[in-house]
C-alpha cells in the first residue's frame, strides 16, 4: 500500500516532504506508571535473583558487623510494595484514561484485532512483509503480551506477599496467605515465585528491543513517546 503511495507521490507530488500529525498517546499517569514499574521490575528481578542465589560476604567475620543480605531483601520488599500499588493505579487509569490507556486494549480478541495480530506477526516478528498496519497505541501482539505480564504481575504479587506474610505483623500481606495451603506449602509458592522471575527477564529483553525496533524502522517517535507522550502519525494523503 505504502509502496504504491510512494510511486504515485513521486509523480504527482514530487519534491514534497511527508507530513506527520502529532498525537498525544501516553498520558502522564501511563508514563509515570511505566517508569516506576521499570525501576521496580529491574530492582525486583535483581534482588530476587540474589535472594535465590546470594553472594557470600567475605569482608566480615561476624554477623553483627553487617546487614548485607537483609538489605537486599529490604530493597526487594520495598520495590514490591511500590510495584503493587503502582499497578493498582494503572488499573484505575485503565478506566479513567484515554483510548490508548483503556483496559479494553489488553483483551485484543475482536475480529479486527485478530486480523492485526496476524499482520503484526508477519511484518514485525517474521519480517516477511515489508509494510504492515501501524497502530498508534499498542498493537494486538503487544497487547496480548501485556495481558500475560499482568497475569504474571498477579501471580508474583499473590505468591510474593504470601511468602512475606509469615514475617509481617501487618494485615495486608496476610490477605494473600490463602495461596500457601492451596499450593501445598511454601516450598511450592517460592518455586513458582522464582520461576516467574525468568518470565520478566525474557520480557524485559524483548520489550526493550522491540521499542527500539519500532522507532528504528517506523520513525514515529516510539522511544521518545514514553518520555513526552507524543507519537506521530502520517497524514492520510
Amino acid at each position: 500500500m505504502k509502496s504504491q503511495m510512494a510511486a504515485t507521490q513521486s509523480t504527482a507530488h514530487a519534491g514534497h516532504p511527508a507530513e506527520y500529525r502529532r498525537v498525544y498517546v501516553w498520558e502522564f499517569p501511563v508514563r509515570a506508571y511505566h517508569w516506576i514499574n521499570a525501576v521496580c521490575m529491574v530492582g525486583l528481578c535483581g534482588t530476587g535473583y540474589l535472594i535465590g542465589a546470594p553472594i557470600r560476604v567475605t569482608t566480615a567475620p561476624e554477623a553483627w558487623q553487617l546487614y548485607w543480605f537483609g538489605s537486599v531483601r529490604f530493597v526487594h520488599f520495598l520495590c514490591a510494595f511500590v510495584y503493587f500499588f503502582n499497578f493498582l493505579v494503572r488499573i484505575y487509569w485503565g478506566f479513567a484514561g484515554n483510548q490508548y490507556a483503556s483496559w479494553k486494549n489488553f483483551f485484543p480478541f475482536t475480529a479486527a484485532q485478530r486480523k492485526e495480530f496476524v499482520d503484526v506477526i508477519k511484518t514485525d516478528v517474521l519480517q516477511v512483509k515489508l509494510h504492515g498496519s501501524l497502530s498508534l497505541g499498542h498493537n494486538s501482539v503487544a497487547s496480548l503480551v501485556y495481558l500475560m505480564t499482568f497475569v504474571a504481575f498477579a501471580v508474583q504479587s499473590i505468591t510474593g506477599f504470601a511468602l512475606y506474610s509469615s514475617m509481617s505483623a501487618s494485615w495486608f500481606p496476610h490477605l494473600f496467605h490463602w495461596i500457601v495451603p492451596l499450593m501445598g506449602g511454601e516450598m511450592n509458592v517460592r518455586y513458582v515465585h522464582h520461576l516467574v522471575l525468568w518470565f520478566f527477564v525474557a520480557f524485559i529483553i524483548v520489550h526493550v528491543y522491540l521499542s527500539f525496533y519500532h522507532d528504528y524502522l517506523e520513525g514515529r517517535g516510539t522511544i521518545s513517546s514514553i518520555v513526552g507522550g507524543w507519537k506521530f502519525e502520517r497524514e492520510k494523503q
Partner: protein
Amino acid sequence: MGNASQSIWGSMQSKGYSRRDFLQFCAVAATMAGLGREGVGEVVSAFDRKAKPPVVWMHFQECTCCSESFLRASHPIVADVLLDVLSLNYTETLQAASGFQAEKCLTDTIQNNKGKYIVLVEGAVPLHDDGVYCMIGGRTAESILHEVAKDAAAVIAWGSCASNGCVQAAKPNPTGATPIQKLVDVPVINVPGCPPIADVMMAVVTHLVVLGQIPSLDDQGRPKEFYSRRVHDTCYRRANYDAGLFVESFDDENARKGYCLYKVGCKGPVTYNACSVVKWNEGTSYPIQSGHGCIGCSEAGFWDKGPFYQHLPSFPGFGIESTADTVGAAVGLVTLAGVAAHAVMTNVRKKKIISEVHEDDQPEV
C-alpha cells in the same frame, strides 16, 4: 491397660502416687497445654474427676519413627502420659495382646466409648489396588481407618505420613498413599515432621486431654502453638543469613564458623516447625545446630522438592542438577539470540524501506 472409667487421680492413687506427686504432674500438664500458673487449678479439678480418655494408636504405612520419637519425650515423661493419663487400649507396636485378642481390644474400645475416644494415626493409607498394600488382620488400612475414625472425639495425624503422605506419597506414589485428613470427616490435628518432635507430640496430646478440646489450628490443620513460625525465624544462625555470611560447602571454613546453611540447601526459610525452639532429645540439639541444613521434613511433599543440598528444587526434564535458574538462564540466552537475529533482519528490511520511499521523505531542494 487400665480401667477406662477410672479418673486420672484415682488411677494414680491406686499406683501409690501421693497427692503432691499428682499436683506436680498437673502443673507440668498445665504448662504443656499452655495454661500457665492460673490454669493449674483447672487441670487439678479436671484430672480429679475426668475419666482417663481411651486412646487407640493406629499404625498404617509408616516406619514407626513417630512412636520412637514419642518414647523420647522428656516432659512429661512417657510413662506418666501413657500409663496414668491415657488409657492406651490399642497400639500394634507396644501392646501385649496379639491376634484376635488385640483386635477385640480395638472393637471394644470403639463400641464402648463412642464419641469419647481419641485416635492417633501413624502412617499414610494406600488406596491403589483396593488398598492391598497395607492390611492388618485381613482388612485394608482404609476400612480400618473409616471404622475407627467414625465415632472418634478427635483424630491426631502423627508425622508427615499421616499429615501429607511423606516418602511413600513421593512421585510416582506407587501405592496411592493418602494423608488421613483426606479420608475422614472428623476433625484431624496434623502434627507433621519425620518424625515430629517428641515434646510437641506430648504437648498436643496433653492439650487434648487437659482442655478436652482441639488446639487452635492453622490453615493446614497444624497446631498454631508449634507450627506458626518457620524454623528460620527462630534459628540461632539467622543473624548470619541477614549479614550474608553463608556456608558454601560442608568442609569450608564458614561451616566451621557456623554460618548460615541457606546456600547448601537449608529449607528452614520455608519450613514451619518448632525445631529451633523446642529442639530434640531433651533440648540437646536440632539439625541446623548439628551443622546440617533443614530438609523441610514437616512440609508437604518435601521428598519431591529435592535435592536436599540446593535451596531450589530441580526442574523436571532438564537433569538432576538443573534448577529454575538453569532453565531461566537458557530462556534468557535464547531470547537474546532471537533478538540479535531479528536485529540483523531488521537492518536488511530497513534498507529496502529507505530505497523505496526515500523520494517523498526528502525535503524540498
